[in-house]
């Protein structure tokens, strides 16, 4: 551990990516070897799902690395693009109408770039209030100017909510990369890595726990597997993993435990909320409907981050008075 500490931040981050890609390469090699076995059945649905997930992890890791390499501006632009695609998916499945057109233009082409510009410039105070205060007012004003009172509140709430989740929530991810801890400069990638690992592990642990416990689901109409106990187990497992990773963060072990718990609990709850929205829209996955060609639901992948990132970011900022 001492040798690791003596490395400068750039070397440490390089080591992080080397480890990540090494682990991925190992998993992929094992996967490829398993597929060569004579008893292997390629059409198995779970196997295909696993391969899709593996590809997504490869893509995610590569993009994470590229975003880091590109620096502050690159990361901001990159997550801005992810935000754009996520919001596009969200709006597609909501029944926005003709009179929402101008409001949507505001959301996509004005609010989204501005929010990310503010992140890139590290104006964290303005960044925190821009969407909840200013945009919250601007959206219904533009909507009212369209002159259509039909289901006015519902239409505005839909768009406002989409902006909150897909733009505001996700913009906290590059904000984490840019947040400056005293004595932790240049290591923002570790904080983001911490958040992603913790949110991901909470999902995996919760899924495993709900299969193992077989509890009665609390909201059968929304999710057949979600139960409070499974959710707590997921968050606790993620918290322990987070605590064991404290040495890559600016936190002490106890702080890392609590921060990981908060992020993990928010991430899995966020996923649950998105499930409710999907049920309402009548789909199983976000993304293009009836996808024969296999369009990936981007929102499915980033939804836990959309909820975990803002809560994590503001908890960190508030607690450490940054």
């Amino acid at each position, binding site marked *: 551990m001492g040798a690791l500490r003596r490395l400068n931040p750039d070397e440490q981050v390089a080591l992080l990516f080397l480890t990540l890609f090494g682990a991925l390469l190992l998993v992929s090699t094992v996967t490829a070897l398993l597929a060569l076995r004579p008893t292997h059945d390629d059409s198995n649905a779970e196997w295909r799902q696993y391969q899709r997930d593996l590809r997504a992890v490869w893509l995610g890791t590569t993009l994470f690395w590229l975003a880091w390499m590109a620096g502050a501006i690159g990361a901001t632009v990159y997550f801005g693009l992810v935000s*754009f695609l996520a*919001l*596009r*998916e969200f*709006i*597609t499945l909501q029944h*926005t109408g*003709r009179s929402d*057109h101008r409001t*949507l*233009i505001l959301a*996509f*082409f004005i609010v989204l770039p501005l929010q990310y510009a503010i992140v890139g410039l590290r104006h964290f105070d303005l960044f925190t209030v821009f969407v909840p205060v200013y945009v919250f007012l601007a959206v219904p004003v533009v909507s009212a100017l369209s002159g259509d009172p039909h289901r006015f509140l519902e239409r505005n709430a839909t768009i406002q909510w989409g902006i909150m989740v897909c733009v505001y929530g996700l913009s906290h991810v590059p904000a984490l990369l840019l947040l400056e801890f005293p004595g932790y400069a240049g290591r923002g990638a570790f904080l983001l890595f911490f958040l992603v690992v913790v949110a991901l592990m909470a999902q995996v642990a919760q899924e495993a726990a709900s299969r193992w416990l077989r509890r009665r689901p609390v909201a059968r109409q929304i999710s057949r597997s979600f139960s409070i106990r499974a959710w707590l187990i997921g968050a606790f497992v993620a918290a322990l993993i987070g605590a064991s990773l404290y040495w890559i963060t600016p936190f002490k072990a106890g702080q890392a435990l609590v921060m990981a718990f908060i992020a993990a609990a928010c991430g899995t709850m966020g996923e649950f909320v998105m499930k409710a929205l999907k049920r309402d*829209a*009548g*789909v199983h996955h976000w*993304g*293009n*409907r*009836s*996808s*024969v*060609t296999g*369009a990936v639901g981007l929102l499915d992948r980033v939804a836990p981050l959309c909820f975990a990132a803002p809560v994590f970011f503001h908890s960190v900022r508030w607690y450490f008075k940054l």
Partner: protein
Amino acid sequence: MTRADLMGLLLNFLARLITGAQGHWKGCPPSADQRIYFANHQSHFDWVLIWAALPKDLRANTRPIAAKDYWTASPFKHWLTREVFNAVYVDRQRTDDQDPLEPLMEALGNGDSLVIFPEGTRSSKGDPQPFKSGLYHLAEQFPLVQLVPTWIDNVQRVMPKGEVVPVPILCTVTFGAPLHVGPGEDKRDFLERARAAVITLRPKIH
């Protein structure tokens, strides 16, 4: 790479960024067979969407139909339709001595594929309007060309009538199983069958 190629790349990128331009090949695989794609018509964006949903290799030989008076009016419009999309121009004013389908038949004779909107005009709501008879005449003249029904979904939300800035919303282009004119099939029966084939491709959830 010419300027037309660059323009093509740019338009394709924009179409994908804004609509996803997902092609779903439900009834036939994408192939270089000579085809007439016939689709519902809801917006000015329709052609670009089909074009972007096609694999790159098929784009060069798949041509749209453009109204001559409008699309040759300015040098830019003319350049765009001629160089980028390789459009087939038709006259909207009917003259007695000329069949309006002649340019289309010439293109089919050369082995090109076409994209046509047999409603003849844009229908913004509900089911497509009855098809014009041109599709039937082309099918009769070229029995070997595959007629592929195509449904373009969601595009009216991207750019409603009267708006100039498109809103990013995912759209899909669904290609169905090719049709042919049955032996002795009546014109009206065929056109109704073709229209029904397009409508059945509409995604169910709405």
